[in-house]
């Protein structure tokens, strides 16, 4: 059985590369979409960074709505699956290898898009490749499950095209896959919550975002896996190896079983404010006003204590010229330090607080003045709304985004445990937020 599975997997991949039609639909069409997106979004900074997840989703969706069911239905029409049915214990491994081969083929198309985007437009490679891989696996599972249902329902290849378009077009147009959610009106964003496409796009975008929202990513992955389980079960249950067989009345129940999770997840998203589109350029976009208002400013360590000290506003009067010069140098360095100038404002804020955290844990002689310098810098550099959202993200999601154990390049020596840096950054974030919102007097 394993031998058959592996040989069929290898054979399916080899035969795919001998089929001109498969190459055109599998690879040329994704490249066409890349070029089309590139034409529209080439002026982004960096170009296409926030559209890559849409492009990758389209590739997976195309493979699921058209590639997989077309292959399955045409093989069924030729009697190939009837022949397979005569083999002992073969249908499950053959179907599994067909699905796995499709995932490999779609992954190839996605890698091609990523490499070409880098080469043609200078789009950065994914910042978190493993997060992207995780998202890709979940998106593939969800969409290929839908592809199995399409293959089961379609009586012939033209019917695959018709059914596939019924899925593909709504997801592209109002599902957040082709047209960005942010470009859609609020009602359409709410409607998109009932389609799996938006969760796919957000899950894949996490691989590109500097500081992705881990909580939101987990929700998206769970939603996609739920879609995958329901559609996969329905597709497997309705699978037809014989073209003469027709789906019975029970098929309606299985189709309903595949679609109910869309409705359930959509309803949950609406009830928890997750329907609003995330700004892919802002890691803190997922923070809700309810979460923000729930932040407590009680029981914070004192500013003149050992943990997360902050010098008073007029601290410079008591500093030596050498200390003043060092603080000036740190401020200048922060102005050009790449992590503090990330295209994601919230991640930049996290990087600045990271510096204060290192100074604090490493017991820098100027830890309090460094924290005050950074607070002043934040006020100067960011709009209040961005600052509030970014600080709330750091306070509420200490484990998201990127942090460093060492920031010696900005003039703050010492190496600390990154976990410690996250914890101290979160406390600083609450302290800064309290000041901005007038909850902590200076």
């Amino acid at each position, binding site marked *: *059985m394993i*031998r*058959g599975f592996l*040989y*069929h997997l290898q*054979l399916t991949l080899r*035969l795919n590369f*001998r*089929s001109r039609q498969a190459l055109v639909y599998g690879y040329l069409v994704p490249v066409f979409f890349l070029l089309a997106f590139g034409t529209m979004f080439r002026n982004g900074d960096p170009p296409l960074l926030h559209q890559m997840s849409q492009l990758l989703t389209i590739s997976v969706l195309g493979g699921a709505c058209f590639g997989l069911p077309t292959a399955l239905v045409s*093989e069924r029409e*030729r*009697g*190939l699956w*009837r*022949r397979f*049915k*005569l*083999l*002992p*214990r*073969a249908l499950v491994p053959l179907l599994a290898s067909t699905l796995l081969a499709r995932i490999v083929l779609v992954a190839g198309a996605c890698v091609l898009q990523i490499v070409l985007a880098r080469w043609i437009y200078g789009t950065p490679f994914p910042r978190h490749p493993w997060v992207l891989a995780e998202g890709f696996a979940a998106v593939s599972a969800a969409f290929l499950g839908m592809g199995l249902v399409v293959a089961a329902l379609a009586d012939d290849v033209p019917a695959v095209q018709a059914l596939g378009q019924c899925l593909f077009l709504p997801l592209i147009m109002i599902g957040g896959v082709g047209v960005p959610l942010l470009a859609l009106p609020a009602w359409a964003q709410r409607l998109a919550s009932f389609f799996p496409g938006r969760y796919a796009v957000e899950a894949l975008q996490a691989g590109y975002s500097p500081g992705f929202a881990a909580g939101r990513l987990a929700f998206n992955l769970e939603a996609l896996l739920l879609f995958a389980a329901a559609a996969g079960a329905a597709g497997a249950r309705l699978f037809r190896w*014989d073209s003469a067989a027709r789906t019975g009345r029970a098929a309606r129940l299985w189709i309903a079983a595949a679609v109910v999770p869309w409705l359930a997840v959509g309803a949950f998203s609406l009830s928890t404010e997750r329907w609003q589109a995330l700004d892919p350029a802002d890691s803190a976009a997922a923070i809700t006003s309810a979460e923000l208002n729930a932040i407590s400013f009680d029981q914070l360590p004192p500013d003149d204590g050992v943990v997360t000290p902050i010098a008073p506003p007029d601290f410079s009067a008591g500093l030596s010229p050498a200390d003043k010069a060092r603080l000036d140098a740190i401020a200048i360095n922060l102005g050009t330090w790449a992590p503090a100038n990330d295209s994601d404002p919230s991640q930049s804020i996290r990087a600045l607080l990271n510096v204060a955290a290192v100074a604090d844990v490493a017991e820098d002689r100027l830890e309090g003045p460094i924290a005050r310098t950074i607070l002043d810098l934040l006020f100067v550099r960011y709009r209040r709304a961005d600052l509030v959202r970014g600080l709330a993200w750091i306070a509420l999601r200490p484990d998201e985004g990127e942090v460093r154990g060492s920031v010696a390049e900005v003039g703050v020596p010492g190496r600390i445990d990154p976990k410690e840096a996250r914890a101290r950054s979160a406390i600083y974030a609450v302290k800064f937020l309290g000041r901005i919102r007038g909850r902590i007097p200076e």
Partner: protein
Amino acid sequence: MTPPPPAISVHGLRKRYGNVEAVSEVSFEVAPGEILGLIGPNGAGKTTTLECLLGLRAPDEGEIRILGIDARTRPDEVRELVGAQLQVSALPDAMTPRQALKLCGAFYGTPADPEALLRAFDLAERADSPFSSLSAGQARRLALALAFVNDPQVVVLDEPSAGLDPASRRDLHRLIAAQRSARRAVVFTTHFLEEARSLCDRIGLLDRGRLVALGTPHELMAGSEIRPRLVVETRPPLGRDDLARLAGVSRCDPEGAGWSLETESISRTLAALAALAEAAGSELTEVRLRKPTLDDLFFELTSHSAAEGDPA
């Protein structure tokens, strides 16, 4: 000591498609090394019977056992033992015969050597050619080769000679006949009655889902009520009424330039015919005896189908 089970045992098989009973109360057994041919008009239920045997269709009633194993409850064990060729079974265009044999063989514990099969089915030269480039005969031979990929004990072939040229058909007949010595049981369907007569140990005649006759070709003919015919030509021609009144003649039909006389007694009719010709001054220019054939039996037993139309 209990005797070994038959290679194939089918009892009380029934299969309906909606309101149409495609197979009704079909029962037969096939011993190891025996060749059974299933004949019948289109829609008689031949293919449905084979598909039930192969587990491609779930029977509504009846029992199917392969070498004593219940095909309905232990289908995968049965599939290990059975090799099959279906009427329609194309492969992906780009797949080669060698790849197809390796792929199907990979699901069996001890598959046959693909190279040996390629040679045995005269496909060695096209082993690496895409399926789309094979001729109809080569594709049919590949389908047959796939039936032997698991070195089966039971072989089921659905119209194996359809689409084959005479030379390929002769090779196929040799192949089927050779299964006797390998102690493989073979069931195959065919529309060629001569093929069934020459190859089969027994023949089953299906009509409208029922097995209306089953036996050796000799038994079938011996049990038939079809009478022999004398084909007669005279100069000058004798009249139909005179011939129809001859001793033993039950029916008189025109045939070619003469008459075909169905008779209950060849000798009595011949004697009466000679006397009639002598009396009428007519010369017997041709007298041929035509014994009933399988074709006659087939048409006799299935003639109502042609008249009433096929059920499915």
